[in-house]
């Protein structure tokens, strides 16, 4: 099962390596991992997408909690949540393909954020599967470069991860 886990941790040097080290040492999967400071600069928030059996996920949550720098852990998959990922795609967009590429970006609610006479750079936000769908929808041969942030997640409604 795929799980998306949010971690609130002390914004200290090395905190990320403790989490990454934990996952590699114990053989847990990491599909993606994102981290940045929160509105409170002393705290970082990390979103980890992982897969594993219920037992493994339970261990992951416990092991994360055991890290001294970790303040709070929430398995977002336990309830309703929203997740988003950002992708930047640079595509070849010259000649007759140019109009088609613009249209595809519009359909997926992407924005063209950089333009040359031969390329577009498109910014796209959504769930991971939407980003995958966009990449499948366009001709693989025109993709010059992609970069994705990995998923960030937040609970729906009143569900809040805060100290």
């Amino acid at each position, binding site marked *: 099962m795929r799980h998306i886990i949010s971690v609130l941790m002390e914004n200290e040097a090395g905190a990320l390596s403790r989490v990454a080290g934990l996952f590699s040492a114990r053989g847990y999967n990491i599909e993606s991992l994102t981290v940045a400071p929160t509105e409170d600069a002393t705290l970082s928030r990390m979103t980890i997408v992982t897969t594993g059996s219920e037992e493994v996920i339970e*261990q992951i949550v416990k092991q994360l909690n055991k890290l001294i720098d970790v303040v709070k852990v929430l398995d977002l998959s336990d309830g309703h949540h929203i997740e988003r990922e950002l992708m930047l795609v640079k595509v070849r967009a010259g000649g007759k393909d140019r109009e088609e590429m613009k249209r595809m970006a519009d359909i997926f609610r992407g924005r063209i954020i950089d333009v040359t006479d031969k390329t577009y750079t498109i910014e796209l936000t959504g769930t991971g599967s939407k980003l995958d769908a966009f990449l499948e929808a366009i001709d693989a041969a025109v993709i010059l470069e992609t970069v994705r942030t990995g998923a960030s997640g937040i609970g729906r409604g009143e569900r809040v991860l805060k100290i």
Partner: protein
Amino acid sequence: MELTGAEIVVRCLAEEGVEYVFGYPGGAVLNIYDEIFKQDKFKHVLVRHEQGAVHAADGYARATGRVGVALVTSGPGVTNAVTGIATAYMDSIPLVVITGQVPTAAIGLDAFQEVDTVGITRPCVKHNFLVKDVNELAVTIKKAFHIAATGRPGPVVVDIPKDVTHHTAEFAYPASVTMRSYNPVLKGHSGQIKKALQMILGAHRPLLYTGGGVVLGDAAEPLRELARLLNFPVTSTLMGLGGYPGTDRQFLGMPGMHGTYEANLSMQHCDVLLAIGARFDDRVIGDPAHFAREQRKIIHIDVDPSSISKRVKVDVPIVGDVKAVLEEMLRQIKAGRERPDQEALTAWWTQIELWRAKDCLRYNRQSPIIKPQYVVEKLWEVTGGEAYVTSDVGQHQMWAAQYYRFNEPRRWINSGGLGTMGVGLPYAMGVQLAHPDAQVACITGEGSIQMNIQELSTCKEFNLPLKIILLNNRYLGMVRQWQEFFYKERYAESYMGSLPDFVKLAEAYGHVGMTIERPEDVERSLREAFAMKDRLVFMNFITDQEENVFPMVPGGKGITEMILAEEL
């Protein structure tokens, strides 16, 4: 008044009431050593290798329950210390290890004696710190002691760059420290405790399975009271020995790979298993699928939530300090009238006695060659069962665990989790310093003792009257045993063809050496050695080369699938 970082380190250690710092100087810690030279609050024990420093601090911590302290320099000082740190980590021993680091400006530039200490030690510490600002030094050391000693204990590394030791700051040692990210749960959940008590009082075939958590959590008293109140059988893991008296009728011995027949069968066939500070280690339950074949309810008390349902699914988890939880259980049992079904309990004990009648630890006491088990039994007799016994790792460790029946906690000091050869001698040093008047024996093998033999020199310097009980079979015995059973007697590299003359070696270090070759000399020599109260005596017992540790559960098998001595 402003103090230098080095002065702050020394003052912090004094404030913590540290008695001994085990260490080895070097460039990055010279400022700290200079301050140690000027103070008299604690003693510094100069070891002969950094690994010995950490093991000795670890042994001190195991024997006292206090935080052990080690101090090493940067680079190789740290890498030498890593085995000691990992050993302490696996057995949850509270340590603060202070490491020197190259100056902050040189970090990352491949400076002389630089290693990424925080990176190297990260997977084997409870936590670690790199202190880049002298203003953070005192509070960081306070945090280190706090983290090391509370919750599930463990080693904490504080890495201090050399420039930080000569920068200055106002010194104020905080009386306490709180951390929003670290608040171990101590009090067990009352609903869970209630649920557990219903199971316990309704049990027909109960078993108390107790581990290192009982010793570390100082829970031996409530454990004893609970076991006696309910007349339940008790088994203790390698790390838990002494938590319950080894000579008591209710004690079944150790479970697991080299556990007793009665302990393993009771583990398998009980209907309610109360696990107390034990973690269902692979050496204890063998094949988890085989263990799960029998239906039983499992209650697990542990201070570390991640130890619960890690290898074995638990029915009633109780996160909390084992002592607090056991005391609460006792209070509730005493307040109520309900008691376990006595008839069922009697039938269970009858069954256990039948298993016990197998006498699975019997061996040939008439052997004309010294049997290692015999040496341990005689050691028990000669020391009245009251010695502090350290061991190394291998066959001798198992014989020590099986035949020295520990009646008190913190008397049995060994590396259970990591299984580190070479711990025995430095452990014994830490124990003897903690308890200068106690009898301290180090049961070891000729393989293990040579891994930290240099510490004999430290023992001389500090006049530590240890008794080293070398069970010398000229083989790496446990390796040889596995090769005999599972590799068709191909003894690959397990024979040590050229051993030193241990008597001369002991004498060279300024100690007394003895070689004992006949069973009839064992007891007399032990008495003679222990009578030398102010001397280290190195006793080289020439033992049966082919003796094996029984019972044995082969790796990957179920715990009832034991090989017993008579089956070979």
